[in-house]
């Protein structure tokens, strides 16, 4: 991983809450077609790298029974939780056929690095 200072770091405030961009390291730390979990301070984030290169970021656990979403199966903008096969849309967070959803985060690739935008909830 790149030293912290070299990473993309950006934050902006709207007066009440702080948004920030956090560099999670190089894109190839997430194998193509899979997900990987990160903890940013105490916040769990799962990053998914679809085979077509698209990146997605969500909260790291399934609201159903806390399944580790990064260990799920990914494709077509969806992830399937490895514990009980709850299927979530990675863009909206909606769960197919269920009345629950996961939090999603804006994420993009910057110079080969994964940059996720965290907000408006505060980082611990």
């Amino acid at each position, binding site marked *: *991983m790149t030293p*912290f200072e070299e990473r993309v*770091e950006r*934050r*902006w405030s*709207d*007066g*009440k809450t*702080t*948004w*920030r961009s956090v*560099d*999670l*390291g190089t894109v190839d*730390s997430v*194998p*193509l*077609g*899979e997900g*990987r*979990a*990160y*903890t*940013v*301070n105490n916040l*769990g984030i799962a990053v998914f790298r679809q*085979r077509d290169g698209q990146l997605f970021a969500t909260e*790291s656990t399934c609201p159903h*029974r*806390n*399944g*580790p979403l*990064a*260990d*799920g*199966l*990914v*494709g*077509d903008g*969806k*992830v*399937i939780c*490895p*514990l009980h*096969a709850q*299927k979530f849309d990675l863009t*909206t*967070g*909606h769960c197919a056929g269920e*009345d629950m*959803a996961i*939090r*999603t*985060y*804006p994420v993009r690739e910057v110079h080969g690095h994964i940059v996720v*935008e965290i*907000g*408006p*909830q505060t*980082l611990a």
Partner: protein
Amino acid sequence: MAGARVVEEILQRDAQRFAITMFGAEPYGNYNRILLSNVLSGSQQMEEIFLNPLLWYSERNIALHAGVKATSIDRVRRLVIGKPMRPTSLPYGLDGCDQSATPIAESYDQVIIATGSRPFLPPMEGMDTPGVFQFRTVDDCGQIASYAKQCKKAIVIGGGLLGLEAARGLLTHRVEVTVLEAMPQLMTAQLDPESATLLKTTMERMGVQVLLEQIATHILGDERVTGLRFKDGSTLETDMVVVSAGIRPITEIAKDSGLTVEKGIVCDDQMRTSDPDIFAVGECVQHRGVLYGLVDPIWEQAATLADIITEKNPQAAYVGSKLATKLKVMGVQLASMGATKPAQPDDEVVLYREPSRGVYKKLIIRDDKLVGGILLGETDTAGVLTQMFTLETVLPERRADLLFGSSNGAPILSVFDLPDHAQICNCNGVSKGGIKEAILIGKCHSVSKVGAHTKAGMGCGSCKSLIMQLLEVYAGEVVEDPSEHYYVPGVPLTKPELIAAIKAQGLKSVSAVFRELAGGKEDPGSKVGLASLLKSLWPHEYEDERDARFINDRVHANIQRDGTFSVIPRIYGGVTSAAELKKIAEVAEKYQAKMVKLTGGQRIDLLGFKKADLPAVWKELGIPSGHAYTKAFRTCKSCVGTDFCRYGLGDSIALSQKIERRFQGIESPHKMKLATAGCPRNCSEAYVKDLGAVAIEGGQWEIYLGGAAGGSVRKGDLLCTVTSHDEVLRYMGRFMQYYRENGKYLERSYGFVERLGIEKLRDVLVHDTEGIGTRLDAEIEAAVAAYKDPWEEATKPVHENQFTNPLAVSVREEEVRA
């Protein structure tokens, strides 16, 4: 919402022309206020109802003053003036600006006012007592939810759409909820008295108390709310109060700037206020004397205004909306549109009621057109009715079809009568014309084919019954949905078709199958099934893609409910040694296994390892993988056979060890658990295994197929009787290969054997009636030869992060606080 929607509409029409500046009293970008009740009930997170985050604005060069309230428009100097909000004030409050802050002024050519509305506060004393909330913004929602945690009882003031949604939301926070409504019924605007009474009963069954005709005058309590006092002097205890008694347009800025304001900001059909350069849109607007509080009319206004401002259609006019709505309360089905009661002498009322099921359906028809409707308890036809209501379609003669759908198999006339431009799929915006074309020209004769062709029905799926009706009309018949016969849902082929296509095109990887056979769409639910199939079709050439494996097969251990993994070393035939046991015990201790469990398959399950410890666990064990994961051959259990047993007729231990060594890791449609028994006493339960071999008198072995003692219990069927271990291995291998080729994915052997019948299997596998015996033997031999112990990855991981725990990224603390 309205303001951002107009901007979106404008950008869609002309992204370059305008320099856009926005003021917003709330500190966020915009969000979908309609979903606030979902946030309150916890079914959606706050973040996912945000429509456009702050980044969206900056990427489009929109200057957004978030948290700054526009306070006046200087029409002479053509300036909009705003002031930052105090962090604690309500964005919809009457004041709330930080008076000491420097005002912000922006010049303009045109102004759009989209100030929306604020909650109506009924006249009541003590409204500022802590514990009293309004239900309007995402911050209100957060505060209500967190305050509810310390409460036992809550009162919602207002029995309208929003009040009931708030009440349902509060229920999920485990408070006793009472709804107060000043009128004699709930949802006065949308329901008639009878349906409102039914709804009241339904809400009460869900645990929401409803008090009608109750007007509270005082909120009681000093430091925090303790109760309410009513007009008649009676009181009611509560820990919190949520006010949701209607909305009032926010019009101060328009008034202060000298625009015409009545109940709302008065606008013409082009959404223009009394100043030709100032427009207004949304809940703050009064148009033709009407104020709207629902989303559809506001979207229509926004589209009209964008047409006017960009001059894309200077003739555009908004002429008012017809109101139809649904109650978004979990467990209640309710749709309402237009009038709730007849208004003219010739109005026809069609009514159906079934109080025991809480079903009530009412239509009000004028000149053969729908002018009002209420559907409670059953809303199947709500989609068609809403269409017919908004489009003013002439109704079919048989009104019952409108309430219950088609009863006699004949096409429902309502869909047939819709004009081609009527939108059928509201998720993907597909019109009746588009679907008709797919059916007539595209020859799509099933709902799923229409979906694949047009995307209709691929969203929430609620329009599928309409698509079905269109199929009945235009195709004359609905073809049974073939997708249930697909091997995996994401590739539209049955197993034989899929195998043929894979072989013909030489597809060796899961992604290649998606690319060539599924239009490039990588259905995650189909990956594992395809991987299993490909691996059995190409034992040597299969291109293993790790993302197509279930997590268990990526780390070669079984995921457990807490996200840890369990490891099962292979113990051939259940026979181990003191040295092996010691090694297992040491590893269990060193890596702190949470449990050491003897399995039903005669092995030792080490539970509760961290993912990152798995490679070390394997290396130190030095025993091959026991495959407690993977849809594959698992174990071959055995009794002690002839070595020690007084009754033993055949050497079941040696046989089971041969079986395990030969078939370890062989993948199949589902897991395979085997057993060998040294005599028909069957101590190893071989009759109820996927495959079993039982020794009988005379040096013979009976081979059983399709036994089960799990979710199903079934004694296996006798395939044949043989005289040697080698023959047992041969027939078991033949069966496995045949099952690999013909079993449906996730079809257990007992389902497969029952489906095909033991006679057929005996013909093919023993009598070789199809002449494929030799080929099956060769194929399974190739699969056996291709086996590699996956635990080799302990020393050579496929990906550097294959076994890592969550990667920690720390953000410097001082920056977070800033």
